[in-house]
């Protein structure tokens, strides 16, 4: 078997969608991730979409995607019999991801000082909506509420009317990005702590408030406010900035869209004008704006916009962008996620992976590696665990016999 980044790391995951993506990253990097679910299965098993639209704890594509590569055991952590089992599991892990409701573990007598006694080398990662203290500590949140409070929504949406007011709402880009943004940073902190442990031999507790993780992940709006005290305007398919910038997204002949990043440098503007001319849409631009110095201001922007609108409208969304890219123009097709599956580039890089579902007798394309690391390949699979799939194996490590495991199952402890 090929080497993996974290092949000697063991992770225990407790909680819900807040922390699942972090566990997925650990599994991809080669750690052994044990996901502890309540008896009957985690609530995210009921998240859509579903295999053939059949709502069923074993058929949630959401669960499959966020839990691929993990092992699964069930445990009612609040049951009296569960506590010594949980303590043994914690004693044997390197990283504990806790995205349970606030104070759940400390309520069971497993606060940070108790955890340290169980396992002085433990990296304890706590993912909470707003932090473990502070005025909004007990606020309720969802993906949508996080993307509102954290700042992304006020940057995302559609152009204002000519008078600068909006008739469309701020938009939360979809795909549970609140948790993806937070878990990326949670993972960075946790791997950092693992590295530190190599020197100190000591564990660490890391507090990751999702609200803060999102608030630091927007781009220019915060520096613009800090340095200029100016607001930004959200604009269709391009950056929210202090003024209305030229259109960057255009409809194509097939009713789809393509985008163009305009005017980064004079060289790029010149390359773009040449390209439009070559495609037969350069007339006005090459006549009136032959001098590079003249290529600025509202008149030029309007002429460029006309040429781009016509050119984009004459071709399909996939047709021109590669040719433009070869001329170093930042032009791109606006694809559906699934349209990348057929792309040769990603096939060569094994960006998508096939994952087998033996009980269905089928194999599906999954999003695979976020990068190509040939010495330590990313792991995508095996498929997410069935409810309690690894109970016997995992509880055998705690010294429980098969009959004891069956007894615990009868009592709904597992």
């Amino acid at each position: 078997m090929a080497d993996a980044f974290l092949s000697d790391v063991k992770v225990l995951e407790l909680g819900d969608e807040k922390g699942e993506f972090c566990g997925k990253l650990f599994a991809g990097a080669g750690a052994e991730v044990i996901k502890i679910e309540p008896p009957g299965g985690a609530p995210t098993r009921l998240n859509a979409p579903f295999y053939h639209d059949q709502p069923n704890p074993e058929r949630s594509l959401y669960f499959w995607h966020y839990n691929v590569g993990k092992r699964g055991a069930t445990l009612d952590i609040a049951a009296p019999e569960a506590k010594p089992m949980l303590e043994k599991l914690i004693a044997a892990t390197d990283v504990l991801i806790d995205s349970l409701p606030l104070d759940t573990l400390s309520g069971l007598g497993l606060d940070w000082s108790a955890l340290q006694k169980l396992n002085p080398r433990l990296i304890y990662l706590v993912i909470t909506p707003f932090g473990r203290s502070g005025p909004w500590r007990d606020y309720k949140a969802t993906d949508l509420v996080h993307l509102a409070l954290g700042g992304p929504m006020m940057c995302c949406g559609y152009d204002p009317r000519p008078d600068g007011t909006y008739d469309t709402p701020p938009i939360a880009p979809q795909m549970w990005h609140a948790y993806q943004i937070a878990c990326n940073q949670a993972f960075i902190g946790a791997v950092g702590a693992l590295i530190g442990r190599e020197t100190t031999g000591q564990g660490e507790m890391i507090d990751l408030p999702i609200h803060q993780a999102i608030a630091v992940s927007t781009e220019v709006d915060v520096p613009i406010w800090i340095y200029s005290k100016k607001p930004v305007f959200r604009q269709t398919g391009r950056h929210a900035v202090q003024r209305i910038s030229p259109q960057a997204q255009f409809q194509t002949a097939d009713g789809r869209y393509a985008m163009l990043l305009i005017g980064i440098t004079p060289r790029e503007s010149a390359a773009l004008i040449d390209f439009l001319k070559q495609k037969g849409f350069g007339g006005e631009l090459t006549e009136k704006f032959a001098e590079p110095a003249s290529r600025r201001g509202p008149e030029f922007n309007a002429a460029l916009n006309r040429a781009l609108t016509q050119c984009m409208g004459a071709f399909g969304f996939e047709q021109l962008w590669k040719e433009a890219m070869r001329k170093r123009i930042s032009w791109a097709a606006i694809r559906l996620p699934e349209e990348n599956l057929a792309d040769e580039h990603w096939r060569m890089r094994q960006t998508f992976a096939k994952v087998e579902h033996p009980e269905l007798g089928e194999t599906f394309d999954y999003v695979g590696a976020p990068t190509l690391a040939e010495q330590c390949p990313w792991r995508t699979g095996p498929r997410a665990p069935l409810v309690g799939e690894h109970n016997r194996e995992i509880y055998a490590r705690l010294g429980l016999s098969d009959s004891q495991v069956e007894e615990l199952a009868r009592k709904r402890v597992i």
Partner: protein
Amino acid sequence: MRPLEGVRILDLTWVLAGGGGPRLLDALGAEAIRIEWRDRLDTLRLAGPFAGPEPDQSKPRGPTDPPANVNRSGIYNDINSGKRAISLNMTRPEGREIFKRLVAIADVVVDSFTSETMRNWGLGYEVLKSIKPDIIYLQQSGWGYKGVYSGFGSYGPVAQAISGLTEQSGLPSPYPPAGWGYSYMDWSGAYYCAIMMLLAVYHKKRTGKGQYIDGSQLEPSIYLTGTAVLDYAVNGRHWQRSGNRAIAKPAAPHGVYRCAGEDRWIAIAITNEEEWRALKTEIGDPAWAAEPRFATMAARVANQDELDRLLGAWTAGQDPFALQERLQKAGVAAGVCQTAEDRVERDPQLRHLNWLIPLPHPEMGTWPVKNIPFHFANAEVDQGGPLGRAAPCYGQDNDYVYGTLLGMSPAQRAELRQGGII
């Protein structure tokens, strides 16, 4: 002590998708040395907003001095806080020889050039490895080196367009995609830049082995498209935008609603009957809320357009923050669509978390910088890094790097400076 103490990074990244990666390792204690040259500066160094008045551009400058405003960009200051910086002309063979001496004392080399640049300079992985056998080399280009698009450039919006993230955001057709109003894949690209470096550093600590990683900005973007690919692979279903409505589980009302003030909105998300009852009570149990078409979650989901209109009519005259506080007290998930001003000037939770950290800069003075959101109980971890400072000035650490680390005499350094090498 900081967890990454003793890890030295040669940072050849640009803008944010690259530059934000070493920034995070600095916060964890690494020493990132940013390598720059005046003729091809990071565009962020020259981009506003700037701190303080515009510098005087008319003052005479020496042959290797950068533009006068190079050390005053607020965005550069945020993205490069905690780093060191040297000036080094990598386009000259003498510059590349000095770079090789630095490789010999480094743990990680990271660049975000287009993918052939380092090879064209004779600085591919094989060469770096011959200098330092356990070197970690992360090439964080736009599209990755292997593959048919390896020469293509990328910015955040390009990565978002190709991956599907743009198409996934916005109101249902016939509205066009709204996309992201910022380079989501710049910070997210930076997170994967940091993740890959950290994983490789951990692996090296455990095994003694370095490695080459062919990273990109595009693949993390695909990685974040979530279940859409699987829904197509399993069900043959294509992605369809649905505005701000819930996609993973039934929830209604679920959206943003206009409040008093210009362009002020509050997000409200009702995911169960208990929350719906609490919301109804706050509205004052109006007759419409008791109608059968809103009686169950399924009914509310089916009648969302009308539900949104009625709820929006109730929120419209209200102060967004007072409403947020009131709904949260009642057990309803609600939050204002906050601007940067709201977060910087008012948000009491972010203030409690010290989300901005004041860091000193030699020319700009002390300004707030976004702090890292992972709070360590034991180790000292913050965005000032071991140096406790904001972004470096151009060439600020030449004396430390060329003098202290490489042992060059002041005379040697002066000669290299005169020769346009440093």
